[in-house]
């Protein structure tokens, strides 16, 4: 269990570094916020007063410390334009995007792994060419385009949902909200399923060349036994890492789909806030996204350590 603790400490350290770099970066890009806010009419006295009010006259490290402390106590600072507590602003959008990501991730995982194995078994058969073509098609079609097709077909033609008609909150109309989220998740998933299947297929083909497979056959395993009892487990660590990357990207990747379906998620919100130069909000979202990526990587590592005993030694294998 030692490695679990070590990995979690590493996670915390990484998050600390990430948050510091983010804070620093925003310090650099946001310039003199007080001046910006007051515009050219602000007198130097007014600017100084506002700087004091915003705490900008404090030393950099102290402000970083306060901001970080605020992050853990739920005080995320205040938007330039919206007096609401930041969490009330971001929370619901984050929730929507997390649901979208969770549905997509489930679809990707549940479909890719069996399909990856199946796709391996097609290798060399006449269907293989068809498989390659279909796989590449799925990877090449961008989610927004599938989104437009879906909106037209499932939304306008079949009337399963109202395009651009996402309810004001999920609770207001859970059925409608979940239908839209589901179709958005499918759009988001299709290219990623294709990528994961392709990755699994090449991993399985690579594993099949290894010497332990020959040993397994020499003991009387049939194809199924070799695949399920030996190769699958050995292919899993790479797959877990790949899926974690996918999970990390899903949130960023959801921006486009949220636009197409008119889903009020984090991605859409982020784009709007960037355009408005609302730095405190953007900064918070950036940190959340970065934490998400780091967390996904850590979880993948921990799962892989469960799968592969060689990784439990710490360091390289």
């Amino acid at each position, binding site marked *: 269990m030692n490695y679990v603790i070590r990995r979690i400490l590493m996670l915390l350290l990484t998050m600390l570094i990430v948050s510091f770099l983010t804070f620093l970066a925003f310090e650099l890009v946001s310039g003199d916020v007080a001046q910006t806010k007051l515009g050219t009419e602000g007198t130097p006295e007014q600017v100084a007063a506002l700087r004091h009010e915003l705490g900008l006259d404090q030393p950099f490290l102290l402000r970083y410390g306060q901001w970080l402390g605020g992050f853990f106590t739920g005080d995320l600072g205040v938007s330039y334009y919206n007096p609401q507590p930041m969490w009330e602003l971001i929370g619901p959008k984050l929730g929507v995007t997390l649901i979208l990501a969770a549905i997509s991730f489930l679809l990707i995982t549940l479909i890719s792994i069996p399909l990856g194995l199946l796709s391996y078994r097609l290798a060399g058969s006449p269907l293989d060419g068809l498989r390659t073509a279909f796989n590449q098609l799925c990877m090449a079609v961008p989610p927004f385009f599938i989104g437009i097709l879906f909106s037209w077909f499932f939304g306008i033609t079949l009337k399963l949902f109202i395009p651009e008609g996402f309810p004001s909150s999920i609770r207001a109309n859970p059925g409608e909200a979940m239908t839209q989220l589901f179709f958005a998740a499918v759009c988001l998933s299709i290219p990623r399923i294709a990528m994961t299947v392709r990755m699994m297929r090449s991993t399985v083909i690579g594993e099949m060349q290894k010497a*332990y497979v020959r*040993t397994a056959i*020499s*003991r009387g*395993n049939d194809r199924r036994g070799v695949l399920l009892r030996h190769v699958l487990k050995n292919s899993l660590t790479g797959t877990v890492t790949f899926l974690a990357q996918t999970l990390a990207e899903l949130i960023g990747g959801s921006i486009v789909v949220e636009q197409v379906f008119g889903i009020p998620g984090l991605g859409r919100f982020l784009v709007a806030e960037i355009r408005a130069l609302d730095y405190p909000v953007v900064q918070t979202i950036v940190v959340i996204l970065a934490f998400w990526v780091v967390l996904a990587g850590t979880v993948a590592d921990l799962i892989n350590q469960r*799968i592969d005993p060689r990784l439990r030694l710490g360091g390289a294998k």
Partner: protein
Amino acid sequence: MLDIQDLHVKFHTRDHEAVGGINLRIDDGEILGLVGESGSGKSVTAMSIAGLLPRKQCALRGAILLDGQDLLLADRSILRRMQGSAIGVVFQEPMSSMNPLLRVGVQVGEALRIHRKDLSPEARRALVLQAMADVELPNPEECYRKYPHELSGGQQQRAMIAAAIVSRPSLLLLDEPTTALDVTIQAQILELLKKLNAETGISMLFISHNLNVVRKLCTRVAVMQKGLLVETGSTDAVFHHPQHPYTQRLIASIPTRHGREVR
């Protein structure tokens, strides 16, 4: 027990046959040594007996009779029933030959899981521990739970031997099982194989580059060159009165001094 008749093996990607028509017999309880330079077709011969050559990539001709049954004519399911139960195989690199993610005990017991569905898990475990004790693995109980990377090279090879003999096959194919090990471990493994052969009467095909090793272990030797058998005979006869010039050269090149033997 094993009778190879005019075996030809040709890979589709190659112009020359890897095995060009060999006749070879292994008697009950015999340890037959198969020597020859690299690429002479020793492994291909062993792999064709074990049914491990990819059938799509090569053409086999002739007959491989195991207790009267022709393995080349047998269909896949019959062959699978013999793999691991009638024929055990040990390869050169114990580390890469083992599945890195499965516990040693599970791998040693795999042939039983496949071929002896009648056994309860406890009975299977007992047989696995017995096989591990037979190959003189220290602390079988502990080894059972370990992963391959937690064993030394010699222990890994012992575990591979245990896995190959766990279902008591009548034929053991050993493809350079000691080449990857250092000299003292090599000697221990040879002693072990001798003991197993003496105690259980299991027949063995022992492939090696190393003539000294073959001389210590085998009752009969076959010499292979470029896919053909150039000489077969009792170990003493072949070593003292080699008939074929190639054998004579091989024997002349044996290092005489003790110490590290060249591969």
